[in-house]
C-alpha cells in the first residue's frame, strides 16, 4: 500500500543501515503503541459520557509493560529482544528487495512524534493549570523543612509559585504543538531534550518516580532529533554548506483529507477537549487534594491549649510521647495532628492521578511531620469520623465528638483507635507565614519583623 509518494531524490541505504532500521522500527513500534491488555482494561473502565481529565492523562501516560508493577527498564529489554528477533527475520525475508526505507522511516517518525506530543501535552496542561504541584496545604506550611523527603520538597517548592509552574506547562504545550509538524519536529525534539534532560536529572536527584518514564520520552525525542542531527552538526560545528532533508511526503486524494482529519481530531481531543477539562478540573476537581468540604469556617492552625489523656491533664511538653502539640483543619476534610508519636513515612513517589478522594494521598505522602486524618462530618450527632490517610495506618479509624464554644475554638473528645480517651481544646492561632508576608508589597526588598 502506497499512501505517500515523495518529492525529491530517493536515497539508497546500505545493508547494515537497513538491518538496524528494521530492529529500531519494531522496537519503537512496540514502545509507542499500547499493545497490552492493561491499557484496554483501563480503557474499558472509563466512563465515557463523564470523561475526566484524569482518564485522558492516565491513558496518555501508559507505556508497554510486561509486569503488573510500574514501568521498568526490564520492559525495554524484553521489547528490544523481540525487536532483534523480528528485525532479523525481516532481514532474512527481505533479502535485498528494498532499496530504502525512507517512507517507513517517515511513518515511524510520525508515530513517535505523535506519541511524544501526546505525552508532553498530557503533562503540559496539568502544569499550565497548576495541578501537578499544588500550593502547600496549611499542614505542610506548619511542618518543619526536614520532615519532608526530597521528592516532596521538590513538589512543594514548585507548588509555591503557580506562575512558574504555568510557564513550565506552557513550554511543554508549545513543544507538543511543534512536534505535530514535520518541519518543526526536530526543533521541538531538541527543546524537549534540554527540558526533559533536566526532568530526568531531577527525578534521579530527588528520587522521583518518573525516572524510567522520563528517560523513555528522552529516547523518543532522540530518535526524532537524530533525523536532523548530522545536518545540524555539519552546519553549526563544522560550518559547512548543508543540504536539507529531501524526503517530502505528498498526499493525494483520500489520504490528503484523511491526514488533515486525523491531525484535526488529535488537536481537538488532546488540546482543546483535554485543555478545557483540565482547566475546569483545576477549579472543581484538583487531583492532589480531596474535594469534600471540611468543617465550616474551621480552616486554620490550632494550639492545643488543653489536652486530657485517659482522664489526666497533660501540660505542654515537646517530648511527651502522645500529647498533641498543634492541629490543622484544612479547607477540605483533612485534620492533621502534630505530636511526638513517630510517623511511618508514606514514601510513594510515583506520580498518580486519581479521580476519587480516597486515592488522593498527596498531603500525607513524603512527610513524617504530622498525622493526617480524613473525616466525615456527622452534623446531627456533632461527630467526626476519622480515618488515617496514611496507608501504613489503615486501622487507625475512630470517632470524635466535636463542639465549637466560640468562633476560634474547637473541642474534640472521644476514644482513639489506640483506645486512649482524649479531650483536646483547640484554639485558633493568628499565624502569619513569612512565605506570604514576604511576597507582599516590595517583596524581599524591605524590612520585616515577624
Amino acid at each position, binding site marked *: 500500500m502506497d499512501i505517500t509518494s515523495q518529492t525529491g531524490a530517493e536515497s539508497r541505504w546500505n545493508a547494515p543501515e537497513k538491518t538496524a532500521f528494521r530492529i529500531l522500527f519494531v522496537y519503537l513500534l512496540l514502545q509507542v503503541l499500547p499493545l497490552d491488555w492493561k491499557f484496554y482494561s483501563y480503557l474499558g473502565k472509563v466512563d465515557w459520557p463523564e470523561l475526566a481529565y484524569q482518564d485522558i492523562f492516565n491513558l496518555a501516560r501508559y507505556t508497554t509493560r510486561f509486569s503488573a508493577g510500574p514501568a521498568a527498564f526490564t520492559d525495554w529489554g524484553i521489547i528490544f529482544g523481540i525487536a532483534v528477533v523480528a528485525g532479523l527475520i525481516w532481514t532474512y525475508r527481505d533479502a535485498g528487495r528494498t532499496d530504502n526505507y525512507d517512507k517507513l522511516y517517515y511513518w515511524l517518525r510520525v508515530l513517535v512524534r505523535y506519541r511524544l506530543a501526546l505525552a508532553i501535552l498530557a503533562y503540559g496542561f496539568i502544569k499550565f493549570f497548576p495541578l501537578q504541584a499544588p500550593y502547600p496545604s496549611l499542614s*505542610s506550611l506548619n511542618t518543619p523543612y526536614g*520532615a519532608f523527603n526530597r521528592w516532596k520538597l521538590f513538589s512543594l517548592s514548585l507548588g509555591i*509559585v503557580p506562575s512558574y509552574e504555568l510557564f513550565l506547562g506552557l513550554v511543554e504545550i508549545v513543544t507538543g504543538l511543534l512536534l505535530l509538524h514535520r518541519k518543526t519536529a526536530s526543533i521541538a525534539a531538541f527543546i524537549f531534550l534540554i527540558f526533559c534532560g533536566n526532568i530526568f536529572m531531577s527525578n534521579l536527584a530527588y528520587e522521583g518516580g518518573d525516572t524510567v518514564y522520563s528517560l523513555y520520552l528522552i529516547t523518543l525525542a532522540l530518535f526524532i532529533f537524530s533525523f536532523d542531527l548530522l545536518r545540524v552538526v555539519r552546519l553549526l560545528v563544522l560550518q559547512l554548506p*548543508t543540504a536539507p532533508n529531501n524526503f517530502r511526503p505528498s498526499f493525494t486524494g483520500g489520504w490528503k483529507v484523511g491526514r488533515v482529519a486525523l491531525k484535526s481530531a488529535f488537536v481537538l481531543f488532546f488540546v482543546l477537549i483535554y485543555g478545557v477539562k483540565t482547566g475546569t478540573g483545576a477549579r472543581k476537581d484538583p487531583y492532589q487534594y480531596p474535594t469534600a468540604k471540611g468543617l465550616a469556617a474551621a480552616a486554620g492552625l490550632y494550639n492545643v491549649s488543653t489536652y486530657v489523656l485517659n482522664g489526666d491533664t497533660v501540660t*505542654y511538653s515537646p517530648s511527651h510521647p502522645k500529647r498533641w502539640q498543634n492541629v490543622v483543619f484544612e479547607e477540605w476534610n483533612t485534620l492533621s495532628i502534630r505530636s511526638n508519636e513517630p510517623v511511618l513515612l508514606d514514601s510513594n513517589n510515583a506520580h498518580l492521578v486519581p479521580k476519587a478522594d480516597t486515592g488522593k494521598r498527596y498531603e500525607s505522602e513524603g512527610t513524617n511531620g504530622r498525622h493526617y486524618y480524613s473525616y466525615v462530618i456527622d452534623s446531627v450527632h456533632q461527630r467526626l469520623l476519622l480515618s488515617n490517610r496514611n496507608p501504613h495506618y489503615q486501622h487507625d479509624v475512630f470517632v470524635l465528638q466535636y463542639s465549637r464554644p466560640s468562633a476560634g475554638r474547637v473541642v474534640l473528645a472521644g476514644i482513639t483507635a489506640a483506645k486512649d480517651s482524649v479531650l483536646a481544646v483547640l484554639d485558633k492561632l493568628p499565624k502569619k507565614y513569612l512565605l506570604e508576608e514576604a511576597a507582599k508589597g516590595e517583596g524581599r526588598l*524591605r*524590612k520585616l519583623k515577624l
Partner: protein
Amino acid sequence: MVTAATVLQEAAPVTKAAPSPVKTAWKGYEKVLFRIAFIFFIAISIPNTPEWYAQLIALDWRHLNYRDLYDIARFGSGINFFGNKIFGTSLLGYANWLTTVLIATGGGLLWTWIVKLRKTERAEYFGLYYWLRVVVRYRAGIGIIGFGFTKLLPVQMPYPSLGILNTNFGDLTAQKIYWLSIGIVPWYQIFAGVVEVAAGTLLFFRRTTTLGAILLAAALGDIVYVNFAYDGGVHVYSSYFVLLAGFLLVNDVPNIYRLLVQEKPVVPVNYYPVFNRAGKALRIGLKSFTIFLFLGVLFYLQLINFLYDPYKQPAVAGVKVLRGNYNVTEFRINDQVIPYNPLDTVRWQEATFENWSTFTFRVNKPHPLDLSNGGGDPQRDVNRTFEITGLAGGQRAFHYYADEVEHTLYLEDKYKAIPDRRNRTAGVGGDGGTDVNLGNDKTPAVTRNDKDERQQEDWIPAAARKNIGDEYGKIASIALSARRKRDYAAAPKNEKRQRFVVQYQTTDGNHVILTGTDENKNRLYVVLDRVDRHYALTPSSLQAGKY
C-alpha cells in the same frame, strides 16, 4: 600585528537550483543596526565601576581566594553615568540597559552620519563583527563559568543547617525555599554547574559558540523565570547572559530556520581573520591564559573553598561535644522558672549547636529579619548568614567563640541591623541583597557612639582570647588567603550586635547546662537535653566543609 582579511567560505553549490546566499556587501539598515549593536554590546561587556579595576590591581596572586577570580568574572556593566534609574524608575533593575540602548542608538546614528558626511562608508563590517563577537563570547564565557563553579563544587546553595531543618516550611521566603530545594541535592547542583561551565567553555571556541549560546540561553532563560517567580533577586544578571547568548545566536538562527523549517540548502558565512605569526601567538597565548585561569585556577580555588571554607556557611568547626539538636528542658531567667509553653514569648523552645560555630534557639516572638539571600563574599563566619536569611519562626542564630579551657561561649547575634555591603564589584543586579544591605536604605542608620564601640571591643577578656585563639587561622592553612586576612584585620568596625556570654557544663553533650547572662543582662540558667530528630530528608553523601 593582526591583519584582517576577508576569507569567506566558498559557496559550494549544493543543488543547482539554489542561488548562492553568500553576500559580501551589507544593506544600509544592517550597517546602522550593527553600529548601534556594536556600541551597546561593548558598553555592556566591560566593567563600569572603579571598584572592579581597584580589586584587579590589588589582587595578591600568590594567595588567591576563589572570590578574587569570581569578582573578575562578575561585574556591573553598561552606561550608568546617570545612575541606575531612568525616568525615575529602575525598571526592576533593567533601567541601565535602556540607558545604554538609548546612548548606543544615538552613538550609532552619529557614527552613520559621520561616515556619510566624510564619504568613508564601508561595504561591510565582517571584521568588526568578528571582534565584537569575540568580546561578547569571552564576557559571557568567563561570567557564566565564574557563576557555574560555585554550583559545580556545590557551595552556592548549601545543605540546610539543623536550625533550618527545624523551621516550618511556611516560615521561609519563596527565595529561600527555592535555594534550599537545590541545596538538598548537591549532585543535582553539580549537574547545573556542569551545564553552566560547559556552556561557558563552548563559548571560548569559534566552532562551538552556537552550541554554547543555545545551552546558555536555555539554562539562564529558566533561571530568569525562576528569579522572577521566587523573588530571587538575580533576574537582571541572569537576563544579562540570555541577552549575550541571544546576540551570539543572531548569526545561526536564520540558518537553522532555513535548513530545518524551510528545507532549503544553507551556506554558512563565518568570517575569520587571518593572523600573522605574532598575531597567532598572541591569540593562542591570550586564549590559553583565559582557559588556564578560569577553568584551571578557578577550579582549584573553588575546590579548596568547597573542602575547607564553603562560602555561605561558617568554616570554623564548632565545639565537638555540643553538636546536635536539643530540647530546652528547663529555662530560668533571673532565677524564675518558666515552664514550656509554645506561646511563651521569652522562653527558648528548642536549640541547636551546628557542626560549625553557630548556636540557635527559637523564641515565639517577632524578630527583625534579614531577607537577603545570604550571598556575597563574607570572610568572617559571623557574617555568613545563610542560616538566618529568609527565615522567620522565631529562630535566632548566634555565632560563638568557644573558650574550651574555661567552658565558656562568647556569642554574638548573626543578625545585624546594618549588614555589610556585599558584591562590591557586581554593581547593579548583584547577589540580590536587599536595599538594606546594598546600602541604599533610606532609613537613618542606627547611631553609634564611642562608648558602645569600646564595650564591643573588650567584650572578650584577654585571657579568654588567648584560649580561643585567632579565628582567622582556624581553617586549613591551604585555604588561607589574602582576602580572608584583610577582612579579619578590618573586622571590629561597625560591629553593633547583640552579645552574651554563657558557661557550659556537660560530660558527653547529651545533657548540657548553660549559665550566664543574656543579651539583655538577665541571668540565665538553661538545661538542654539532646534529642534525636527523625528527619524524613536524608542528607547527601557529599558535604561541604571540614568540621
